[in-house]
């Protein structure tokens, strides 16, 4: 779609000199484009690229005693990366990935049927249902996690509800794998539903009918017709859930504890109470690298313009 747009601009520019000469000559396309991007470029250079480079540099520095970091060009070390991947910290990386993966799967299982239903069967109220998905999407993530803390805590709503039902009111929900995965799933579910909805809505219904006419069953139609057609939305949804979930800080902080530490809370601690900036930087770089791999897989699957 985007390419078509650019193509039109292009033909317009090619055609112009012929019928409308000097008077209509516009600023050259490359100049206009770069000028319009200048504020973004300057902004990102100072507040995105330089800070990221600083973190990469710091990940090779030493821990300071008075200052949080001692950095010296002549004395760069890899030891922070060794520490970040030692048996103390490697399980935290693995745990973050597993949590994010499980919540992504949960989001697909919860989100796909809902998106399918809204796109195909919700009738006249479709926009109302969409707004019902967008409301939690635009609602403060922190507050939504706080709501779960309120529900799951020892003397919280779930325990008093279970107590009323005679199932005991002293269950432990917080600081468990369950709580953190629940929180991540809840937090990022709208990010799965919206792109899935968009691609299911665009799907040609007659494809499904054709599949039946050609003798495919339900299962076969689902896996061989529906799933491949909506896969761009699915890929987008998976990445939109997985990427923020793996580096999340708020959920493990509010619903988890020491046993459920994730990489986000660990980095936070290294820059706070742990006061080990080089280690925290090394962890940040590793997290960033992991995410970038994901991004490039995504870009190669769906193309840059799907951004």
């Amino acid at each position, binding site marked *: 779609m985007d390419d078509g747009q650019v193509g039109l601009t292009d033909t317009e520019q090619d055609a112009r000199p012929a019928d409308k000469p000097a008077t209509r000559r516009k600023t050259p396309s490359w100049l206009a484009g770069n000028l319009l991007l200048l504020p973004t470029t300057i902004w990102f250079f100072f507040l995105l690229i330089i800070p990221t480079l600083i973190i990469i540099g710091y990940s090779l520095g030493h821990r300071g005693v008075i200052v949080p970091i001692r950095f010296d060009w002549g004395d760069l070390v890899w030891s922070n990366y060794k520490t970040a991947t030692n048996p103390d910290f490697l399980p935290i990386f693995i745990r973050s990935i597993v949590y994010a993966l499980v919540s992504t799967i949960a989001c697909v299982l919860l989100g796909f049927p809902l998106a399918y239903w809204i796109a195909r069967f919700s009738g006249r109220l479709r926009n109302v249902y969409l707004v*019902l998905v967008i409301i939690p999407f635009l609602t403060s993530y922190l507050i939504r996690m706080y709501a779960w803390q309120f529900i799951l805590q020892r003397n919280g709503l779930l325990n*008093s509800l279970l107590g009323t039902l005679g199932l005991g009111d002293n269950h432990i929900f917080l600081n468990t794998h369950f709580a953190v995965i629940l929180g991540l799933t809840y937090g990022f579910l709208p990010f799965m539903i919206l792109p899935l909805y968009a691609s299911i809505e665009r799907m040609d219904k007659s494809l499904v009918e054709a599949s039946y006419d050609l003798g495919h069953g339900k299962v076969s139609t*689902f896996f061989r017709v529906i799933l491949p057609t909506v896969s761009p939305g699915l890929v987008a949804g998976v990445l939109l859930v997985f990427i923020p979930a793996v580096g999340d800080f708020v959920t493990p902080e509010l619903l988890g504890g020491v046993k459920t530490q994730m990489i986000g809370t660990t980095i936070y601690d290294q820059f706070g109470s742990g006061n080990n900036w080089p280690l925290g*930087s090394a962890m940040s770089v590793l997290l960033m690298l992991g995410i970038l791999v994901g991004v490039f897989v995504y870009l190669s699957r769906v193309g840059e313009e799907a951004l």
Partner: protein
Amino acid sequence: VTSVPTKRAKSPLRPRYLKLHAVLVFAFLFAPIIVLVVFSFNKAKSGTDWGGFSTHWYSVLAHTPAALQAFRNTLKVAVVATFFATIIGTSAAFALTRFKFRGRSGYSTLIFISLVLPEIVMGVSLTAFYTRFAHVQLNIHTVELAHITFCIAFVVVVVKARLSAFDNRLVEAAADLGATPFQAFLRIVLPLAAPGIFAGAMLAFTISLDDVVITSFTSGPGSTTLPLYIFGQLKFGVSPSINALSTIVLGVALIMLAIAGVFSLRASKRGVGAVDASTLG
């Protein structure tokens, strides 16, 4: 080939089960939010026993200077961040959709990276930049700069989505009718892009309003925002006044959504198109 009895049965996923599933998922999405709002009006001091309806915790908040200050800071930061991010992001979106030039995909990738960079990484790198490199005192302005940084990409994505559906023949028609490029931009392109720009600004505002991680790394004494204030209070445990505060924040977000809805309804009545889910995602 057997004929399929009704049109509905043609779906491999049965509508009846899908509907049940939809009801359950919506309940899952809304139950915690509703619980929070309901219990913000609870008279009882502790957790989950219902002690009757009361607005007591709201008046407690109104007499907590720190909460009021945090509320003012939040609005200040969100307005400043939205304003600048909308201008910067919109011009970037125009560049990326309406002009062809070398390095375009490089810019797109950079914007995409800023979108997927984990908040925690952006937070720590900005704090390192501010305190160890630029040697500035952390205050409300460092928070504003940080918020503009992460809001830009969201504006770009939303405005780009709007502009890529743009019919360029309209501009050509304007040119044929004697409009200068500037006039065509002002009277054709900008009004058509307006719903996208508005949606982008709304998204930037809500995201700025919500941020806790990056703010906690870039704010100094006196520049605490509402999410940061809530986060700090949570260390002392759950309290009804946090429920009240959360309800206020939810209310602000809902008002924003309602304004966006009214705006998009008016826009679609004028035939300009709606602020729909696809421009938000």
